């Protein structure tokens, strides 16, 4: 019998699919129907000519569950390719967040200072508010949002993770 470690880890999975009606519902339905987690999910068309979209899902599970998720995804008819970025090799992951902070005086200055350290840009500002755009790994975005909380954070919108393998290979 295989010695399967039962450790639960987060995995970032890329899925290349036909961009057709219902395809996202199929993927999401698979996760909910079989009781798998979705920690984040992004989707957009990436190849207009061949009408392909790329879905990035962050999920978690034991190695056996992750294998099952990959096999189940591959089985869907509109799915072309499935890659587990987390185990397949070096890759980069990024997330974008829009963060709205409301405040005056000291807090406002402090927010701007921190934004600068995190290389977040102000996309919009009023006398009493900023919208920052921050790009980075999930942990960096989390940290930025945490720091903004005491400074008047009122609204957040995040894209979820997108990822891609390093080097010459393509999905």
């Amino acid at each position, binding site marked *: 019998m295989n010695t*399967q470690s039962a450790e639960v880890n987060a995995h970032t999975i890329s899925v290349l699919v036909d961009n057709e009606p*219902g395809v996202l*519902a199929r993927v999401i339905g698979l996760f909910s129907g079989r009781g798998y987690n979705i920690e984040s999910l992004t989707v957009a068309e990436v190849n207009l000519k061949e009408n392909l979209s790329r879905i990035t899902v962050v999920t978690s599970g034991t190695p056996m569950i992750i294998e099952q998720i990959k*096999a189940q995804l591959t*089985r869907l008819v509109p799915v072309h390719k499935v890659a587990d970025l987390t185990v397949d090799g070096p890759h980069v992951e990024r997330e974008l967040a829009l963060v709205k902070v409301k405040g005056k005086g000291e807090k406002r200055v402090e927010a701007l200072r921190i934004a600068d350290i995190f290389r977040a840009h102000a996309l919009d500002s009023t006398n009493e508010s900023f919208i920052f755009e921050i790009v980075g790994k999930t942990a960096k975005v989390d940290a930025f949002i945490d720091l903004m909380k005491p400074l008047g954070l009122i609204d957040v919108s995040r894209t979820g993770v997108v990822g891609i393998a390093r080097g010459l290979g393509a999905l």
Partner: protein
Amino acid sequence: MALRTGKKTMSTQETPESGMTGAAIMLKALVDQGVTDIFGYPGGAVLPLYDELFNQNSIRHILVRQEGGAVHAAEGYARSTGKVGVVLVTSGPGATNAVTGLTDALMDSIPLICISGQVPTHLIGNDAFQECDTTGITRPCTKHNYLVKDVNDLARVMHEAFYVAQSGRPGPVLIDLPKDVAMAKGTYTAKQKVKPRHYNPQVKADPAKIEQAVDMIARAKRPIIYAGGGVINSGPQASKLLTEFTRLTGYPCTLTLMGLGAYPANDKQYLGMVGMHGTYESNMAMHHCDLMIAVGSRFDDRITGRLDAFSPGSKKIHIDIDPSSINKNVPVDLGVVGDVKSVLGDILKVYKARKVKPDQKALKGWWQQIDGWRKRDCLSYDKSSTKIIKPQYAIERLYELTKKKKKVLITTEVGQHQMWAAQHFHFNKPNRWMTSGGLGTMGYGLPAAVGAQIAHPDALVIDIAGEASIMMNIQEMSTIAQYRLPVKVFILNNQYMGMVRQWQELLHGGRYSESYMDSLPDFVKLAESFGGVGMRATTPGELDDLIKEMIAVDKSVIADVCVDQMENCFPMIPSGAAHNEMLLGPNDSAEQSVSEEGMVLV
């Protein structure tokens, strides 16, 4: 049929290139795919299709009495022929009635095409009359589904749907067709001209894995072949190869419920069915083996019982066309992705080329151990009564009195009778046994028998039924009457939902909550009212005559066989128990082996 007086329309006669209606395109695609029979029920949204059907003679439409029946009929048709079963239903209630059958086909890997009508495209999403979100509802219960919005896509979708339904692990595919698309004019694309989609399941296995498999097979000392429905899916040749492989190695072979017939039941290397109601020798051999060779079987919970106690000392090879079946429930040492026929063929080639000689001494010891288990005679039952018919005896006689017939096709409903049929009726060939395994759908057997009889007009088709299950799709007796199908319904009437009563007895202190079947119809009169023949036996002495007469009449028959009401189905591995904790008869108590965790299992 006599009523087909309509003239052929232009669309089916003329050159098929353009100007055909969606309905005509659909019909033409069906004909091109070699479809000769479809099972359906009309309604507003599919009227254009029915109009098209009226005007042609290539395809026979079988009018069922409820859409659920159409899907099970198509399943029986598919399972008994290896072809794709085709269903046609209307929008809304027609489609929702088909859902159970689609789920059943998905669970049991049955290739089906279900065409459903839909409200016109401009009304979709409007809560229009008889609208439902058919693709949404059926997404999780089909292998794939389509909503066709452009008539020029229709031919491609149809051909692709047939491809998807049959390739890889087979399954049901639904095509939802809005009425305006069925009436719009468009272009037909021939089957050969449709570019196959990228969907391309692996049929031929990795040669390195074949070598590895043969290594493991050659080294085994206590092997068992555990084969299932995938062998049937792979076609009759796969059964032949399984038989050849088993004989060549001298290894014991067991089958799942879905696999019955994939290996000849009368062979001495056959251990009977595996699993919850399988034989003692099969389950003990599965538990104690050192090599398990799973061939097109999916380690269902009905087989494994308690997972952490499942065959603890064995290496496992799993041959399956669906990678998601491998390592799903039970981690295996070697997964071989491919079609059974191709993989077994390759294994046999390598095995022969290498002149493998199994360890005869070890094998002899293993067979001695197995023969010891066989001596428990686990399927025996009390034969002393001359007054009460034991259900097992009824099946035994049915088998004995029909086994010389050329082609006997058995369907079943769900319950104890289904298990007794699996245990006591023996199948030596594939595609002769149609049962609802994965979903366990009561009401499957009668419509499935309709489908099987339509496909095999000369066969003896028998639905082995329970009195509760038969009521679930009894309306199909009317279909049987209309098409003069000589289907035999052999009811093991125990006046209980026997399987439910058995679990209540084992696990719920014998409190028979709602499992008694009150107010049953008089099945003899019921048969007569549908133009068939009704019969009844209440004592063992009457049984043989009943069966002989049932076979002899050239009409549909309902045989009401009144059996022991309290008989339970053994052997049984209670849910959540291990293989070596099997109950062999009424004197074994389940309480010692059923844990609290086991109680929550089904």
